């Protein structure tokens, strides 16, 4: 369904943005839950280092993250050359590459939200599950995971919303190829660089704004639903 209000190229940027954000969340969700559990519950050497590493994208300029990805996953980079050799796959200048850059940028956001959710889980409930015969994995899947799911969902929605707008890392690592890696913010940037692109920029900015508001509302709705499902709302 094409909206007559948007030009086909603009519509494709919107679709691409949604796709990149969705894929980035799909990439990072499971590793983020694992890392959050490790950071919150694990006791191992290098925990602080892992913590710092995860949070790096929050403080390092996004362009630097993109550059680092380019170094690692470039065709001649250590990981990029392996991918090319084994699978014939390239990430640089592809939609997948844009999703990877977005995933790295939003990873700390998910980890933080998941950790908040995990910290809200009463360890006493896990202990109770243990006395009832549930082993380590059983406890995690039957008790911890469902109880931390509001945090996971909140993290996913936040990362998705943030991923729609990732600019620096994407443009550095995946470039600005219309239909391939030109997401909403890149399209807005390109429009502002073109003479007479003001109207297009304004339309796309409006779409960005609407998507962000919708994301926030969705996050709130999910939080309420989950709260009721977990029996929190009634316990007042």
């Amino acid at each position, binding site marked *: 369904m094409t909206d007559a209000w948007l030009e086909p190229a603009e519509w494709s940027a919107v679709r691409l943005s949604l796709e990149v954000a969705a894929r980035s969340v799909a990439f990072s969700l499971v590793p983020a839950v694992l890392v959050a559990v490790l950071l919150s519950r694990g006791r191992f050497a290098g925990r602080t280092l892992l913590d710092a590493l995860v949070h790096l994208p929050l403080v390092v300029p996004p362009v630097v993250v993109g550059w680092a990805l380019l170094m690692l996953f470039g065709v001649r980079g250590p990981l990029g050359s392996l991918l090319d050799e084994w699978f014939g796959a390239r990430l640089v200048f592809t939609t997948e590459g844009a999703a990877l850059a977005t995933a790295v940028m939003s990873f700390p956001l998910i980890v933080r939200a998941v950790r908040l959710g995990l910290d809200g889980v009463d360890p006493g409930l896990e*202990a*109770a599950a*243990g*006395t009832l015969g*549930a082993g380590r994995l059983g406890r995690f899947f039957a008790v911890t995971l469902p*109880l931390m799911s509001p945090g996971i969902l909140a993290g996913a929605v936040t990362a998705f919303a943030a991923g729609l707008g990732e600019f620096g890392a994407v443009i550095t690592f995946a470039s600005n190829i219309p239909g391939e890696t030109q997401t909403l913010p890149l399209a807005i940037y390109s429009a502002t660089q073109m003479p007479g692109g003001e109207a297009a920029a304004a339309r796309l900015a409006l779409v960005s704004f609407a998507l962000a508001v919708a994301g926030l509302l969705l996050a709130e709705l999910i939080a309420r639903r989950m709260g009721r499902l977990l029996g929190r709302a*009634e316990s007042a």
Partner: protein
Amino acid sequence: MALEVDLRHRFGSRRDRDGRSDFLLNAVFSAPTPGVTALFGPSGCGKSTVIAAVAGLLRPQRGRVALDGAAMLDTARGVFVRPERRRCGVVFQDARLFPHLSVERNLRFGLRRAPRGAAGPSFDEVAGMLGIGHLLGRRPAGLSGGERQRVALGRALLSRPRLLLMDEPLASLDVPRRAEVLPFLARLRDAARLPILYVTHSLDEVDALAESLVLLEGGRVTAHGPVEALSIRTDLPALSARRDAGGLLHCQVLEHDAERGLTRLGFPGGALVTPLRPEPVGARLRLRVRARDVAVATEVLRGLSVHNVLPAELTGISPVPDSPHEAFLRLSVGPSALLARVTRDAVGRLGLRPGMAVWALVKSVAFDRAMASAGGEPTPEDTPAPPRPLREEEADLAPFPAGTALRAAG
């Protein structure tokens, strides 16, 4: 067979900033199995730590926990059975029901994970016994405190445990809720035939449920043994310094006299009269006869409002902790034992000394806090000996004089 517990664990290896010294738990006791053993002591004495260590939720620095000879923990031999393999059902003070699961799925949580072939009451039996059948579809958040605790009991019981651990299961409930849950606990105890370790700081719960008692103070066991034996010891301030210190009597309801509003209870060695009780004839009760409600007389008295005048032998006199002007008298009434708390002056005035025959005067109102213990039908071998016939001189003091319909049997 027994549950053997020997734990040594130090919390906080260094003195913390508040200057609080660290806490050393050094608890050694054994509890008969099956049966209810109460771990009794003030808050912070280490009771819950013992439960956590037995359940495997805490790994003590040194210790051994063995149930009927099988070690669940033995630090000397490097044995540590993980909690999920110990099959200790735990009932926590705060119930700890899973908020995201319905009552039914909470109840089935342990049942699903119990070893195949493990015997125990069925789901329906447990739901019926605890009166939670109508709650199955509800979420824990929608339950009252008493209901939650009943579901927690059922959940622990359905996990087919070899040992039930209860960590102050009634402490978070108000008094009416406690009274609501306590009978279920008694039913569970009688139905489960399991060893139960029951942590409490309430003597009422001890009286209603426990057969043996472990006194814990400051992380150490100060005494352990049958509840009756410890209750009449005067050298244990944890018990004897309490307002409700006193002996315990195993009673059975012999008869009711609705007209006079009285119930007659038999106990090994005699009989007592109390205001009318709700239990049916034949029901068994354990009554705490508070030492402060017992007086003694060296001669037969007349014109008393006190119903119960029991012939007794004075077996010992000992000081009352923190009360230099009072004394405890230990009295034996047949095979049963009572405590009386009297002034030191009375001891001198009456010339009381061990070996003397005295009359124990027990105010009948002393029993109003007693709770039904074992439910169900009494079995013949458990029936207390019928009270011996009254002697001449007792006859006119007896609550129901000879010749009335309420005459003592035998």
